[in-house]
């Protein structure tokens, strides 16, 4: 089993169905890098609406990882109002997003190894 507060939602939902746990872990592992690229591209294109949509998508993609820091960061991106400095602020959030994502990827890798 995993440490408390990270994948507990996933295991509670799975109720012992490890095929399902693996499926969700695989999907999250695949989606996290793609979601980051999408957010980065939308920021580069100064497309605030798309950043908000991509942040929302990423939030759904990692919904079964209980990580408050990531959840707050994505909510901040998703709820960012239009302003002159919105894109700059989003750019500044990117390093933290990448750092937490890397941590989550490691968590998923470790979990998958544990499951075997």
């Amino acid at each position, binding site marked *: 089993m995993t440490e408390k507060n990270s994948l507990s939602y996933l295991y509670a*939902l799975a109720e012992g169905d490890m095929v*399902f746990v693996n499926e969700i872990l695989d999907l999250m592992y695949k989606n996290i890098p793609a979601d980051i690229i999408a957010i980065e591209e939308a920021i580069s294109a100064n497309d605030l609406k798309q950043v908000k949509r991509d942040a929302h998508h990423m939030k*759904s*993609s990692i*919904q079964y990882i209980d990580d408050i820091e990531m959840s707050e960061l994505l909510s901040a991106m998703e709820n960012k109002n239009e302003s002159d400095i919105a894109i700059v602020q989003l750019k500044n959030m990117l390093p933290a997003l990448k750092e937490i994502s890397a941590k989550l990827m490691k968590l998923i890798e470790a979990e998958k190894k544990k499951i075997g």
Partner: protein
Amino acid sequence: MENATFGYETSPMNCIIIDDNEVARAAVKHCVEKTPFLTLTGVYTNPIEALEAIKSEKPDLLLLDVEMPEMSGIDFIKTFHDIPQVILITSKKEYAAEAFDFNVTDYILKPVEYPRFLKAVTKAKEMQESLRKETPESNELFIKVTNKFVHLNLNDILVIEALADYVNIYVDKQRYTVLSTMKAIEDKLPKKDFIRVHRSYIVRIDKIKEIDDQIISIADQHIPISRNMKDPVMNALNKL
């Protein structure tokens, strides 16, 4: 599970999932598969893709995401006249109030937890059972005209028109004026055959001869369609 108590084995509930996110779809699918009285008939990534399946397969329940890029779940509900039961699944609480304005059965927050999911679908199942009992199976209606009850075949009704405390029921060349509200008479009519096209008009769908912008032609009558009913009316038609 206590399903046998409700007789779920004999009347499964067909459902479809509509969500743009594959993790969310997988999680909801897992919940459906754990629920013996639910049968999954389709999984869709957007509402537009699901529209045809809803019309042709007539699922009993939609498990619908709210925030999707093509069209929001709430906007999707607005386009229907006779929508199946809907359980909205979203990450934001603030949609709840608006959602209940559209008579959704329940509202679940992401990440979906199975006990909450089961509560919502059980509510839908119970509503289905009670609706089944209430839905008029008869194709007849007796209306009180002056001192006698007159028999009408629902197939013959063309239009029902509100008239203060009364309604006019048009059947071929005849008109009956009956003491009733539009809501009371609407509840007596099968939703698959009749549609409220305006605050003051209900029409029988298979009697529609023509629709020209905001006007429906039935027999010799021209019936207005209210702006917010245009999409539900168009969706109720079997169009080519």
